[in-house]
């Protein structure tokens, strides 16, 4: 019975967050424009200078997916911080429901927003000449990687939103997450980076995640490692981020609100 309640309550909270997303026209419009503009920018402006093998669009799609997910996570952090500064969370907590379902609502809405953005990146990519060689199994595996990554990132964003204490502070999270992919293999192979930066780029979480998608779609990774190897590291990163963020968010929610 209480399981049914938890499901109903989650559904209500998700509906709430999805409605809120749709009613923030500026953020919504930006989230939809970003994949399109970035794709055109990278492929037609920077793409000409790219000296890898094949077309730049074949290289850059996974990078743009993580970049847009970074932006999406910033939106989620801001949404959580906004809620926490509002009386409505107190109201939820004074009701006979699990108050932390507020976070579930945000995370599911975040997942939905990011998957729409990802679909846009893929759609625009295909329109400008991206030709992945993956079969159905490869696509399913790549989709699973994206969902796992976005889920971990969404919980991280929820934890950051709770930790930030203010909407402005939460906003700066977007900046960090949109900067990190540049220092990975998302946009250029690691060997083109200066050696001191290469070490960081090869070992930060965005690289295995991007390489897993690249390997699944195009058959080869830019690092030369096998897809399975990259996928293993990527999943370990995502699982770690998810576990820590989920625990941190749950703890922060109860301690922030019960202060």
């Amino acid at each position, binding site marked *: 019975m209480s399981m049914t*309640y938890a499901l*109903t*309550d989650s559904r*209500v909270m998700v*509906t*709430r967050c999805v*409605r*809120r997303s749709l*009613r*923030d026209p500026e953020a919504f419009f930006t989230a939809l424009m970003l994949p399109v503009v970035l794709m055109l920018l990278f492929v037609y402006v920077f793409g000409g200078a790219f000296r890898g093998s094949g077309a730049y669009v074949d290289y850059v799609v996974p990078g743009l997916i993580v970049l847009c997910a970074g932006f999406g996570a910033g939106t989620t952090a801001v949404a959580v911080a906004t809620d926490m500064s*509002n*009386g*409505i969370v*107190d*109201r*939820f*907590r*004074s*009701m*006979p*429901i699990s108050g932390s379902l507020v976070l579930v609502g945000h995370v599911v809405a975040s997942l939905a927003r990011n998957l729409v953005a990802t679909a846009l990146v893929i759609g625009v990519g295909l329109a400008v000449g991206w030709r992945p060689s993956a079969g159905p199994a490869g696509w399913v595996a790549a989709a699973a990687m994206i969902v796992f990554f976005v889920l971990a990132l969404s919980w991280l964003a929820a934890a950051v939103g709770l930790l930030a204490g203010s909407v402005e502070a939460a906003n700066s999270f977007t900046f960090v997450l949109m900067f990190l992919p540049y220092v990975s293999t998302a946009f250029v192979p690691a060997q083109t980076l200066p050696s001191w930066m290469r070490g960081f780029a090869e070992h930060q979480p965005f690289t295995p995640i991007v390489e897993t998608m690249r390997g699944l779609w195009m058959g080869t990774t830019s690092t030369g490692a096998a897809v399975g190897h990259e996928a293993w590291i990527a999943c370990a990163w995502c699982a770690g981020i998810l576990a820590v963020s989920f625990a941190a968010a749950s703890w922060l929610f109860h301690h922030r*609100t*019960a*202060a």
Partner: protein
Amino acid sequence: MSYTVEATGICKSFSGHPVLDHVDLTVETGSVLALLGPNGAGKTTMVRILATLMRPDAGTATIAGHDLLTDPVGVKESISLTGQYAAVDEKLTGRENLEMMAQLLRLSRMAARARASELLAEFDLADAAARRAAKYSGGMRRRLDLAISMIARPPLVFLDEPTTGLDPRSREQTWSTVRRLVDEGVTVLLTTQYLEEADQLADTVAVLDHGRVVARGTPDELKARLGAEVVRLQFADQAAYERALAGLDPVRADGQLRTIDVATEGSAGEIFHLLGELQEAGAPAHKVSTYRPSLDDVFLSVTDTDTDTVTGTDAGTNTDDAASAAHAEPKEMAR
């Protein structure tokens, strides 16, 4: 006599600084209790503790028959909380807000829709049902907030500063809404810094100051504590004002206007005696007037407030003595 709220010995400190110091509070079923106090007195903390949002460091409470510490879910099912800032989702419409909360309170979708329609009509929001709460006026938002509080018709409603920031007309409207809840048998615990609000709505007023209940009673009882009439004495010069202040136990004193207000029974003999004593002390009053004490005067006489006491411009060193004398009196009453 039955009580919906029975709290004893509630204590809470924040980083070593006590905010609530052994507060006892009872609210009779079906009545309105106003928790009155200046900013920082601990009113909101008290409400948050009683609404299960915060755990007390010490003390116990029973809310509508449920123990606060051992049965918080039972408490949550018996209360609703209207916060200091209207707790509505601004991006949702009035109707969506109500339907969302109704579903969280276990109403089916159909039932939630029906209940939302009822409440929108009852709280005079039917025309604004499809508009986002962000576009509502302050008064409308409060009404929506109160409507949400009434979805499940809980026996106890907490109203934390329900009219803070509202214009006078919206305040009147909110008051009449609260009165209607009371007519339906709801018990209300409201916090306010407005004496007029307590006077208008409350059956019982508890004055909270520095984390302690310093006075409690009906508004009339509290006013009666000060006697029938307050005598306002005005002095011709600063010296006379200060001499008079040293020998009096004022409700309030104003160094700029050189007025001292003293509570009396209102008899001619008492006022005659008072004026005679001042004359003898070399501090004759220049003008005398009387007025009936308001809850304001009660509040000032029982709270340890720095405002409205002695604010002499050129009073020099005497000001400190006078101020501490004025402060000693409320502490006396607190015991």
